[in-house]
Each structure stands twice: as structure tokens, then as C-alpha cells.
């Protein structure tokens, strides 16, 4: 892939070029300012742009605006390189739409880590939507999941692979031995296990996977004949779920889809029905807060909760994506709220008042919403949001059976945490009564 690196500072270009070339096997084209970059985009087929904000002649924001305004370059993913905490600039960047951002100073390790993540997103983005729909829906997996179908019947395997996605996404194996080999080589995240597997049969295959130090966490789904007793496969140790064998594409899809809702929740379904919504929420939050605080912000793999003994500030409002609403809450400890407000106003966090914290968080949330609106409108979805309000009360959103989901974010460098909780409007309404 050709990556266009745009920065007037040669030391930054050098670090980026070195990491992209050596560690990520990209070809790098350089430009010293926006004008040169726009010219290059007209001449070279570029798969990714890494763009600095402050540059002579045409700056990064204007360059981004022109990239987005030109039909030929509109869809090119951009990673913003920034030491920018000016609210207006951050707002413009997130609304114009960037895939990610990197903060300075750069180190080769951080460049590699960040760009790897971007490349993984890009490969997930380029998948046909049906495959992405499934991949996103398999909630225990990430969007880059590989699947393996293991069955002795060649025509069933072909039907399965064709129905669920392109060949490169669904790997196939005709026997238990071949299935093990492919699992070791390609590490699929989910394996659908059928029958007719030869000497290394179904039960033995499952035991071997579960005993393997690397593969043991693979999701294993049994393919059981229709009409089989419900406990036929699931009583066996080691399966995560089961689907019914069918040659009807709609039934197969429905069967796989039924696996997608472990909690049976409306929110989960909403996220599955709108591929890209989850990513837009996560990346929008990371970008707005990360650029504001001038630090790398990342989604934590594991959900955490705010420490009970620290005052927590909540920002609450609602989003409506086409139809049902999502009640959201952005929470952070008071010191995080102070840091954000201090950056926004440009004063020392110690001088920040409670009122500043509230208006600062409201502003941040409006920016995230703005970013989300742009991202969703590209996918034909309409987002409306209500003006958020800030509270320090920790009333859970949703009732006891509430359908909610919390994303935990962390900035390791700044030692700050914050949380984004989503709940469906239905549960929010219940909670309000």
C-alpha cells in the first residue's frame, strides 16, 4: 500500500517513513505541505494519508477539507498527526472525518502500533457488508474474525462459505486432521464443526482444540442435523453454541444470527444491524478526547468501572439513529473532567470550576456527536441528538434487566480513564418511571 506522509518537519517524516517501511511493508510517498500533498494525490494511487495539522501554505485542516470535497479523494482514509488541543481545530477535524490520530512526539513503536490498528480497520472495512455484518455480530469476536467450516461434505462446505462470505473469509476443511492443520496455520476465531470428519472425528477435534495452548479460546460452534435433540451437541464439553444444518441460505443466516445475541438485547441488535456504528462511536470518542488532551486514548479490551470513592461526573443525553434511541452517558472522574475543561479553556486544571467541567464535557459530547453524525451520514443513517446535561449522580441508566453496554477508555500516558455507557431508549424509559 502507498502511504502519503504529509508534514513540514523532516524528522517526523523520517520516523514515519522508517516505521511504515520497515515494520509494515508500506511504500511511503512524502509531501512537505498540503499543497504538495494534494498534487501528489492527483498523481499517485494512495491508500492512506498521514497528515500533520500545522504546516505552511496549505495547513492540515484545509488539506483534509479539500480531500473530502474532491470526489476522487473523498474516500481516502486519513490519520491526523497532531499536537492540537484547540477546540475549533479538533471539531473541524473530527467532523470532516479521520480514521485515527497520532500525537507527537512520535516513536517508531507507537507509529507501528497505531498504523497496524488502522490497517486492520481498513481490511475489515473493505469486506462485503454481509460478512462484516456477521463478523460484527459475533459479539465475542472482533471485526476481523476468520471462520473455518469443518465438514466432510464438500457441497455443504461450499454452500456454507458462499452464504456467509467470500472464500477468503470462510476457510474450509474436509477432515478433522485438515481442520487442525488450518487452525494452527490460520488461527480462525470461530470454527463451525460438522460431521464426516474421518479418523480425527468431531469429539476428538474439539478436545484437541481445547487442549491446545494457543487455540483453546477459539469459538466452536456445532452444526447439528435438523430435528436433533437440543442437547445433542451442547452436552458435549467444549462447544460455545450450535446451529442447525440446512441448505437454505436464509435459514443458515438466521441460524448464525441467533448466535449473535448472547444477551438477547436490543442494543446489541442495533449495533449489529448498523455495521460501523460501534466503530464510529469508539473512534469518535477516542479522537475527540485524545486530540483534546494531546495523548493517545484507547479502548480497553476489558470493561472497568470508575473507582467508587472518587467523584464521578456524568454527561447524559440521547442519540437517535434512524429509529430507536440510544441513551448514552459519558462518565469520568472529576480530575479527568478538570483536565478536559482546562484544555478547552486554556487554563490550569486547578483553576477550573464545576461549571467549567460541566460545560467542557457537554462540549466534548457535542463534538463526539458531530463526528458520529458525519460518519453515519456516509452510511445513509441519520443521527439526531438531544442537548446533553451533566450530573454527578450515578443512577444507572436502565433498570435491573437493562440492556446496556459500557466502553472503557484509557489514556495510559496521561493516566486518565473515562467510560461511555449506552443503553436502549426502551430501557431508559423504563428507568425513568
Amino acid at each position, binding site marked *: 500500500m502507498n502511504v502519503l506522509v504529509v508534514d*513540514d*518537519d*523532516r*524528522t*517526523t517524516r*523520517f*520516523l514515519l517513513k*522508517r516505521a511504515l517501511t520497515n515494520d509494515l511493508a508500506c511504500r511511503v510517498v512524502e509531501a512537505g505541505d498540503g499543497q504538495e500533498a494534494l498534487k501528489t494525490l492527483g498523481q499517485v494511487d494512495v491508500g492512506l494519508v498521514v497528515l500533520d495539522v*500545522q504546516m*505552511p501554505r496549505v495547513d492540515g485542516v484545509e488539506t483534509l477539507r479539500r480531500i473530502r470535497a474532491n470526489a476522487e479523494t473523498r474516500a481516502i482514509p486519513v490519520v491526523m498527526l497532531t*499536537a492540537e488541543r484547540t477546540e475549533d481545530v479538533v471539531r473541524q477535524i473530527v467532523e470532516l472525518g479521520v480514521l485515527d490520530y497520532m500525537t*507527537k*512526539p*512520535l*516513536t*517508531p*513503536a507507537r507509529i507501528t502500533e497505531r498504523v497496524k490498528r488502522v490497517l486492520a480497520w481498513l481490511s475489515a472495512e473493505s469486506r462485503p457488508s454481509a460478512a462484516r455484518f456477521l463478523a460484527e455480530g459475533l459479539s465475542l469476536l472482533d471485526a476481523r474474525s476468520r471462520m473455518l467450516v469443518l465438514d466432510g461434505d464438500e457441497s455443504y462446505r461450499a454452500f456454507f462459505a458462499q452464504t456467509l462470505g467470500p472464500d477468503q473469509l470462510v476457510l474450509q476443511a474436509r477432515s478433522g486432521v485438515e481442520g487442525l492443520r488450518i487452525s494452527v496455520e490460520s488461527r480462525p476465531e470461530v470454527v463451525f464443526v460438522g460431521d464426516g470428519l474421518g479418523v480425527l472425528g468431531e469429539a476428538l477435534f474439539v478436545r484437541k482444540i481445547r487442549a491446545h495452548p494457543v487455540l483453546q479460546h477459539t469459538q466452536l460452534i456445532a452444526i447439528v442435523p435438523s430435528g436433533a435433540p437440543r442437547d445433542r451437541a451442547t452436552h458435549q464439553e467444549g462447544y460455545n453454541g450450535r446451529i442447525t444444518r440446512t441448505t437454505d441460505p436464509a435459514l443458515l443466516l438466521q441460524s448464525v444470527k441467533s448466535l449473535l445475541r448472547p444477551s438477547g438485547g436490543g442494543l446489541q441488535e442495533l449495533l449489529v444491524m448498523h455495521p460501523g456504528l460501534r466503530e464510529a462511536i469508539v473512534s469518535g470518542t477516542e479522537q475527540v478526547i485524545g486530540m483534546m488532551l494531546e495523548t493517545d486514548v484507547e479502548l480497553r479490551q476489558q470493561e472497568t468501572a470508575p473507582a467508587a470513592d472518587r467523584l464521578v461526573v456524568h454527561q447524559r443525553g440521547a442519540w437517535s439513529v434512524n429509529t430507536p434511541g440510544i441513551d448514552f452517558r459519558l462518565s469520568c472522574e472529576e480530575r479527568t473532567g478538570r483536565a478536559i475543561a482546562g484544555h478547552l479553556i486554556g487554563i490550569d486544571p486547578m483553576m477550573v470550576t464545576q461549571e467549567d467541567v460541566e460545560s467542557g464535557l457537554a462540549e466534548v459530547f457535542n463534538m463526539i456527536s458531530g463526528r458520529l453524525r458525519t460518519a453515519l451520514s456516509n452510511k445513509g443513517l441519520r443521527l439526531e441528538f438531544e442537548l446533553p446535561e451533566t450530573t454527578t449522580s450515578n443512577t444507572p441508566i436502565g433498570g435491573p434487566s437493562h440492556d446496556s453496554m459500557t466502553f472503557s477508555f484509557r489514556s495510559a500516558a496521561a493516566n486518565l480513564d473515562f467510560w461511555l455507557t449506552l443503553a436502549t431508549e426502551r430501557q431508559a424509559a423504563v428507568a425513568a418511571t
Partner: protein
Amino acid sequence: MNSQSDSHTGTSPSSSFDPAELLERMGGDEEGVRELIEIFLEDLPAAVADLESAGDDLVRLAKAAHSIKGSSANLAAARASSAAAAVEMAARAGDARAAYQERECLLEELRVLTTDLERARNRPTTEPS
């Protein structure tokens, strides 16, 4: 950030840059470090000229300082980077007197840094004991 790297590398806080930190950031690639220093030194005279020629134009001064803030941070030159940040902040706040004072500090810092980098260019892993 500076104090943290100082404490774990054992480099004196008074150093204009931290060679051990820089080498670590570059994954131990001494040739890469040397090349990075070379690029910085080649471009520094033009950056200094921008600082000096900004005159009364605080916007230009802020931009010139911003640029040095970024490139010196790439070289683990924390003192120059924070001196440049001080110039940028004062210039952006419209405080001309403070901006010019900070500029003098930055120019002095850059002179020291240049000498240290030139020395390190030939022996980038230098860690005097």
C-alpha cells in the same frame, strides 16, 4: 515526561537531550539515531532563522516555535522542546515581552543542543559514566 526518562536512564536533568532515551525509542538502531540527528541539524539553521526573523509578528513566532517544539521532541530534547512551547504559548497569548524573553532562552538552548548533537552524531550511544 522529562523527569521520568531522566530517572530511568540516569541521565542528568541538565542534559540538552537524552541519548539513551532516543536510542531506546529507536529500538536500538544506532544508524537510525544518527540519521535522525543529521536531519535535525541540517534543518535547524532554517528553523532558527524563522525564529529570529519573525520580528513583531507573533503569529509567525508562534508557528516557528511550534515547529521546533515538535522536531526537538522527536529527538528527546526535552529542554529545547519545552522552551519552544513557552515561546509558542506566550506568542499565542499575545504577550510580546514574554515571547521575546522566552525566545532568547530557546535560542540559547538550541546552541547547547547543537553542540551536544554534533558530538553525539559520531557516537550516538554515548553515555558518559
